[in-house]
């Protein structure tokens, strides 16, 4: 156990902790000792003061009476039970000292030792200590003295000697106890520390084992990283170290394998330029074993292999150099090789090692020859191609043009090389062309652009140019290669097509291309605009989607008719995207193209035309001045109503009404007032009569009224109400003055027989009107039937 505790890092720690703890303990004891000494002095002073005071109090009476026997007896008795009092001395100024000890007492004459001790005190100090501070002399005493005053007179001095033995042994016991306890506590704490560190010691032992395995080359060991504190961190570091060592070992192994298996010959020269290492591949280059070269100087090595450049290249040690050489083998044959020199820093300062590498470049040489031949073939092919081909370097300058290019431009290759070729670009295309070329070049991206290039006759033709970056076998960008294709004819056709499309888009009529299945294939801009669809939306619709009149079941007949006649013109209607329907006139044209049937329909919006027709029709039925039915329309309506009354045997009446003295109104107030009177009359009629009643102006101031479902009596009431209303109406005149009054006369007739016709009824009513006029006007007369 002892050897286990005091061995290893923890033994190291144990011993030091023990020493530190002990030293610290003793240091503390030293401090405590001083303190204890001080305190003991203070205690002695207090004890001395107390004892001296009590002793003096007990003996002062005896002292006063000179009863020294009682004093001695008292003091000896006290000292018997107070072992730490060595002596008590009463000394007076005459030099007499009464010295009392526990076992004896005496009288000393002519001794002023204790007297002086007490009386030489400063006034402020009531005691003196003799031999104080020398604590470690147990044989000595320290003395407390105080003056004795009796009746106000200084009698002498009382001195009390205290044994240091008791203090000495008490502090000795204290020191012994503290030391023993300290040592015991130290040993116990160390043992507990030893026990409590079992786990970490075990972990450290594991780490030591792992480190030993590492030193033995076992690089796959793994330390516990979850160990305590720094041990865990140490484990982590060891694992990292083992991984790093393993990685480097693997890499070193790979490097050795590479060096041994590579086809390149490695020759390592030390700092004195003597061969210290060769690999097996050197045999292939020299025909000699590697051991042959060991210790050979650089010069000898160069001469032997006919490497004249070797010594010169070795002069510059800081730069890796290489060159192609022909190595002479032992049989005097040669091998094409790349000679490469690498300076390798050694651990020592100064000149480092030199590595000479010989790489077989026979294949590369063959490849170069092959490449040259390939280049030739490429140029032959490119020159024979009908397209214009150019090649540019990484500096953006064109380095080669094929013969087709040269022939087209009529310029020499030298003129075109570099940036000379840009002189043939059309001025309008120049800027765009160069921007595309430059930006693509910078981004190393393929590009395609169209521009005009001048030919040898000075004419410009359109070309499409496609450029691709050139990357060599090592992945390096080496420039661009481009090819131009003549697209002049296509450009012309496109121009024509754009013109046609422009024309269609700007035509006054909507144009639709429809197939035989009524699908819309295309439409011009006006059609899209009129219907509210985009072209893309429109081509997804059929005719039924835009033509509300169109019936799908009639499409086949319609298509057949169109096919037979070639074209059809008819009216229909179109529905816009927002649901509005407008009338159209359609001219459908049938044609076939590339085996397919098409209908090219020209559609015209005839909304205005239809509106005009409606207006004309309405003007024929309505009286312009009064808004009532015109005479013709009234006649048509009267025939209809009469027929209905006869058919359903329902009553029917007709009123004929005329403005009284209308001629005088015109003559007096003018036609404008006359017209106003007529408008007012029409207004009164519409207010009095029903909606089913038909009112017509059949002459200048003559009106006719049809009253369906109205018999004679009812018609009389209506006529009277109408007459009364007119008579009560006042027409204000714009010129001022009294408002104008006017009246009407009304003739009334009712249907009496199914044989009556409108002519008869008109005549009868007209007669009744005439009668009303003759009988004084402003009245209603019923026709006699």
């Amino acid at each position, binding site marked *: 156990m002892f050897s286990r505790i005091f061995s290893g890092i923890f033994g190291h720690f144990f011993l030091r902790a023990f020493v530190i703890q002990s030293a610290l303990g003793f240091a503390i004891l030293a401090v405590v000792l001083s303190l204890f000494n001080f305190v003991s002095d203070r205690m002695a002073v207090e004890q001395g003061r107390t004892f001296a005071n009590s002793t003096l109090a007990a003996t002062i009476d005896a002292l006063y009476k000179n009863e020294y026997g*009682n004093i001695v007896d008292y003091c000896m008795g006290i000292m018997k039970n107070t072992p730490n009092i060595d002596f008590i001395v009463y000394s007076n100024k005459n030099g007499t000292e009464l010295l009392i000890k526990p076992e*004896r007492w005496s009288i000393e004459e002519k001794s002023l030792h204790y007297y002086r001790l007490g009386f030489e005190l400063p006034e402020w100090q009531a005691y003196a200590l003799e031999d104080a501070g020398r604590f470690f002399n147990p044989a000595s005493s320290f003395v407390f003295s105080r003056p004795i005053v009796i009746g106000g007179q200084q009698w002498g001095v009382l001195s009390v000697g205290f044994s240091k033995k008791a203090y000495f042994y008490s502090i000795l016991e204290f020191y012994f106890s503290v030391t023993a306890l300290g040592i015991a506590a130290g040993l116990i704490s160390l043992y507990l520390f030893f026990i409590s560190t079992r786990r970490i010691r075990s972990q450290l032992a594991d780490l030591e084992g792992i480190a030993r395995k590492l030193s033995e080359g076992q690089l796959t060991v793994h330390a516990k990283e979850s160990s305590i504190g720094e041990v865990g961190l140490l484990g982590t570091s060891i694992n990292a170290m083992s991984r790093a060592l393993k990685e480097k070992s693997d890499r070193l192994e790979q490097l050795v394998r590479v060096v041994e298996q590579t086809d390149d010959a490695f020759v390592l020269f030390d700092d004195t330029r003597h061969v210290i290492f060769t690999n097996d591949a050197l045999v292939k280059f020299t025909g000699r074993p590697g051991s042959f070269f060991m210790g050979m100087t650089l010069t000898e090595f160069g001469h032997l292999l006919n490497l004249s450049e070797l010594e010169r290249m070795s002069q510059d040690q800081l730069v890796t150099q290489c060159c192609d050489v022909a190595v002479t083998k032992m049989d005097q044959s040669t091998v094409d090789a790349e000679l490469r020199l690498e300076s390798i820093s050694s651990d020592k300062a100064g000149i480092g090692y030199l590595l000479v590498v010989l790489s077989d470049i026979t294949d590369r040489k063959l490849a170069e020859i092959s490449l040259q031949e390939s280049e030739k073939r490429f140029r032959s092919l490119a020159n024979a191609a009908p397209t214009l081909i150019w090649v540019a370097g990484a500096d953006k300058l064109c380095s080669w043009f094929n013969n087709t290019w040269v022939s087209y431009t009529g310029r020499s290759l030298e003129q075109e090389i570099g940036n000379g070729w840009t002189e043939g670009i059309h001025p309008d295309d120049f800027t765009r062309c160069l921007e595309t070329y430059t930006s693509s070049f910078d981004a190393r991206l393929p590009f395609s652009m169209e521009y005009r290039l001048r030919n040898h006759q000075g004419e410009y033709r359109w070309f499409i140019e496609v450029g691709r970056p050139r990357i060599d076998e090592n992945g390096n960008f080496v420039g661009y290669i481009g090819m131009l294709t003549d697209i002049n004819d296509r450009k012309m056709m496109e121009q024509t097509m754009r013109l046609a499309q422009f024309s269609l888009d700007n035509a006054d009529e909507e144009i639709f291309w429809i197939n035989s299945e009524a699908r819309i294939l295309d439409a011009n801009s006006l059609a899209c605009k009129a219907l509210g669809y985009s072209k893309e939306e429109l081509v997804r619709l059929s005719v039924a989607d835009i033509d509300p009149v169109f019936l799908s079941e009639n499409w086949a007949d319609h298509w057949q008719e169109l096919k037979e006649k070639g074209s059809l013109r008819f009216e229909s209607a179109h529905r816009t995207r927002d649901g509005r329907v407008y009338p159209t006139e359609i001219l459908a044209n049938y044609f076939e193209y590339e085996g397919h049937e098409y209908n090219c329909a020209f559609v015209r919006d005839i909304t205005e035309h239809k509106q005009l027709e409606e207006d004309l029709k309405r003007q024929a039925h309505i009286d312009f001045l009064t808004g009532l039915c015109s005479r013709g329309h009234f006649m048509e309506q009267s025939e209809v109503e009469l027929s209905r009354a006869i058919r359903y045997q329902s009553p029917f009446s007709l009123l004929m009404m005329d403005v009284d003295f209308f001629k005088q109104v015109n003559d007096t107030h003018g036609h404008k007032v006359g017209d106003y009177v007529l408008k007012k009359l029409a207004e009164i009629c519409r207010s009095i009569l029903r909606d089913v009643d038909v009112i017509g102006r059949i002459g200048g101031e003559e009106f006719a009224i049809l009253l369906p479902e109205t018999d004679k009596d009812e018609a009389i009431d209506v006529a009277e109400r109408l007459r009364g209303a007119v008579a009560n109406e006042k027409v204000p005149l714009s010129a001022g003055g009294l408002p104008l009054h006017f009246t009407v006369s009304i003739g009334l007739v009712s249907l009496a027989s199914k044989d009556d016709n409108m002519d008869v009824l008109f005549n009868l009513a007209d007669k009744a009107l005439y009668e009303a006029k003759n009988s004084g006007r402003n009245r209603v007369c019923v026709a006699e039937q």
Partner: protein
Amino acid sequence: MNEKLMRSSVVSLFLLIAVASPALAETAKNTILMGGSTNGLRNTTQQDAEITFNTLLDDALKNSDLKLNIVVFPTTEELYAAFDRGEIDGLFGSAVEYFPREDELGEDTMALGFKGTGVKQRFVVVVRRADGAAQIAALKNKRITLARGQDIEAVFLNTLLLRQKLPEIPKFFSEVRDSKNPNVALMDVFFAKSDVTIVRENEFATATELNPQLGKNLVIIEKSEPYVPAMGSVRKNLTKGKVTELVNALKKIYGTETGKKVLSYSQAVSLETITREDKQSIRDLVIEYRSLKAVPPPPAASTAQATKARVRKNVQ
């Protein structure tokens, strides 16, 4: 309390108990009660004596069926009254106190044994050498110091004076000073507070050990024959077995640490039984004193002189 004096008193008291214990009467509870007076205690108090001795005796008899307790009376007269009333089973004290009740006490008497002198002690009269007094008669009108409890020493000195036809102490000496103990009495003489004192021989030896200057400055002018100064016994009616048990237990007191310590205070080394012959010399002394006292002494120095001396002492 003066420790030394207390311990000395304890020793004396213990001596008396030891002397008296064999004669203790058996009580219903086997408790034997011994009595003494403060005259026999010298400088200790009644309570201290009782507590010290009872504790010591309890320890000595802890394995016995007997229990021995002491009781201290203020005066000899009260001691005798208690004894006469049968309230105590034995008596201890000086020879002066012992002999008047000797007839009622048993034969087994115990006394302190001193180193070198056995159970007997000599009394010595001590004066300052410088005073030049060589005989007791030369001490007339001198000051004497007597310690408390020295009744037997006073008997000896009075006998000595009476033999020379001199008056007894109060009249022979100009001043009689009391002291706490014989040692103080000797120091009184040494410091000239007194002119003469009488102490036991071992007490004088002890004092000179404490201060050899005393041996040089003080001188013995009279020395008695050896006497047993104090003794004690139980009543006669206590059975022999009980008395023997008590005696054996008390003899073993010196074997205990406490007992040895208490006895050592008075240079005593043992508790021993004494014979009638051992008591005879002190008995003869008492008898002689009584017989001499019966003859009127010659006229002493005038009373006026003695009174003057007392007054002078008080003034000082």
